[in-house]
């Protein structure tokens, strides 16, 4: 029963050296960019269909897992992203019709969002492809369709917080939620436990919003004990998340990316924020703040997923270059990524 014994926590060294895409001759940078572009597509389609964040996270996890087991050169990132959305909608009981998913996919792959273009043939082709890919993805994922996500850990943690100012708590929760959302742009869910990702998001959000977590044992449980995570892993995970927001230095950008363009407006948009995050938390996480919390009254309402995104607002049109929105044949995928990858895709520089 080999198919039943799959372990879904991957080794980071495997991701760097030994993914199917790597064996097909894709470099780490290329894979990172491709992964990210596919994820952006997945997010755009999901937002267009008004899919809840919980379902998006499931789809993203399927997507990342799938490309740990199959190569980007054999399967197109957009097709897989579309099929992952459909499958996740089923498993999370937030049904969307296949026609909705495929028309939305066609729209974003075409990169023309005007509602007047209606190409039935194109939508038909998409829905045929998605139907074909869906069972294949399910089989590749060993039918492990139930996914644990960090959101639940975060919400459970928020329930334990009592006596905070409502706005402060809301602000903190929104930041943590958004950081978890952003973590799905990188394959972090493959290496870290959901508890760890949630805790890292809590830590970073607390730093950003000056939210006082309990770090004094005399006031009951320490906050990372509440979320039940290993502090060592937490430190690594915090660093990883911060790295994913970092703007890469010139020498870290691989030459093939550098050629394509070095200026992009979204750099400036996000630059300050990135700096801030990096500066606030990169040195010795978990040890800076010793002030303990003061009891205040407040009720928490969970953040609404739609209102929050920290990632820069790159429009889908900029995302990558795919011809005519057609489903590209196998094998000619990663040729022409633009400079976007450069700013967004240096989440793991572990050379």
């Amino acid at each position: 029963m080999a198919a039943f014994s799959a372990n879904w926590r991957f080794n980071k060294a495997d991701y760097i050296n030994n993914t199917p895409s790597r064996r097909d001759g894709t470099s780490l940078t290329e894979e990172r960019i491709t992964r990210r572009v596919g994820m952006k597509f997945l997010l755009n389609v999901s937002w267009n269909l008004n899919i809840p964040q919980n379902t998006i996270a499931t789809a993203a996890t399927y997507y990342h897992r799938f490309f740990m087991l199959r190569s980007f050169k054999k399967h197109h990132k957009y097709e897989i992203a579309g099929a992952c959305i459909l499958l996740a909608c089923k498993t999370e009981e937030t049904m969307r019709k296949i026609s909705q998913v495929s028309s939305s996919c066609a729209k974003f792959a075409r990169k023309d969002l005007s509602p007047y273009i209606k190409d039935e043939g194109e939508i038909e082709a998409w829905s045929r492809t998605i139907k074909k890919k869906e069972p294949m993805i399910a089989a590749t994922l060993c039918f492990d369709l139930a996914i644990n996500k960090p959101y639940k850990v975060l919400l459970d943690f928020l329930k334990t917080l009592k006596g905070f100012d409502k706005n402060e708590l809301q602000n903190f929760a929104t930041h943590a939620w958004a950081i978890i959302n952003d973590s799905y742009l990188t394959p972090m869910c493959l290496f870290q436990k959901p508890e760890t990702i949630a805790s890292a998001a809590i830590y970073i959000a607390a730093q950003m919003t000056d939210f006082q977590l309990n770090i004094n044992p005399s006031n009951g449980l320490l906050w990372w004990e509440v979320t039940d995570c290993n502090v060592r892993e937490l430190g690594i995970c915090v660093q990883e998340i911060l790295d994913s927001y970092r703007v890469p230095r010139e020498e870290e950008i691989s030459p093939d990316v550098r050629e394509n363009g070095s200026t992009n407006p979204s750099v400036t948009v996000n630059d300050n924020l990135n700096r801030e995050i990096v500066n606030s938390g990169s040195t010795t996480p978990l040890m800076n703040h010793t002030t303990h919390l003061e009891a205040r009254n407040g009720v928490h309402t969970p953040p609404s997923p739609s209102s929050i995104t920290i990632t820069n607002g790159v429009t889908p049109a900029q995302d990558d270059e795919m011809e005519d929105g057609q489903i590209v044949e196998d094998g000619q995928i990663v040729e022409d990524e633009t400079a976007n990858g450069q700013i967004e895709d240096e989440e793991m520089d572990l050379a």
Partner: protein
Amino acid sequence: MSTFQAPEEEELQIENKYLKEKKIGEGTYAKVYRGIERATGRTVAIKKIKLVQTEIGSQGIELSAVREVKCLRELRHPNVIELIDIYSHKSNLKLVLEYLDSDLEMIIKDKSILFQAPDIKSWMLMTLRGLDHCHRNWILHRDMKPNNLLVGKDGQLKIADFGLARDYGDPHAKNMSPQVVTRWYRAPELFFMPSQYGYAVDIWSVGCIFAELLLRTPYLAGESDLAQLELIFKALGTPTEEDWPGFSELARDMKFQKYSRTPLQVHFKAAGSDAIDLLEKMLTYDPNKRINTREALLHSYFRKLPRPTPPDQLPKQKKTQENVIQQKELNSKPTIQNRGEQTEHRKRKAQEISNKGEKKIHRS
């Protein structure tokens, strides 16, 4: 990890692991075959899920198949059907499940079998244990009925058919479809079209099954949804605001005849006082007050004498016994003559499964 193998090779390997023998049934979205695991000779049921690519209006993998796979992958319990293997082959999805040749409905209908009180206790115990396992894994079954409680040769009862099951307890558990559970076993709150409900709906169904075991006939067999509600009120009395807080709010547009409650003891003369008490707690109107699986398992009914019958001593269908012998012959030498001699029972089972498919309402 075997996952780095080429997918086709892997599928072929699994395909060869099982020998498909005979079609035993067909439902709305799947065909069920009986098969044999080559290595061990164990009889298995192979559920082949149709994935018709060209069909208009097809939504990819059936939602019920996704639900079944998702839930069964998480559950492992002696009283829940085991998902042995799963693979996709030639764009078909195939679930390999435990093979059980009988179900509680067939046993209840077989009038040649006499039920003793300890037998009923044993079946109830196994049902509740299985259901408790589901609920503790945050899974709602939503289609509990005797037909879905399979009984094996060793007498073990197993909950099957998770085509309607879903996760419960995630923060977004809203918009749940009230169109679940076969009508006779449907809890009263479901008739008022709620968008949220809980584990209590399964308990109500188990209560109905309990009553059916005691009576040997379906307890509340309504013709239509409204008639079903009427029937429930007739049997258990129209609920008052006291029985079910919020009932008058739910039923504000509907007028119900006022029935007074008759004690259950009147209908269930043969049942002991503990059994009646448990049944009463399972068939409580207010879903919040209805007993849960944990409490039910700790109920005095299960602790007092007589002890539940051990599963292997439970009454069985005689035809099933013949089946066993024939299967053994079949396993040793699958000749054409033997295959021709299919018993009536199996045909009946096939008929039943196809009927079941028709009966079920398709739900989104």
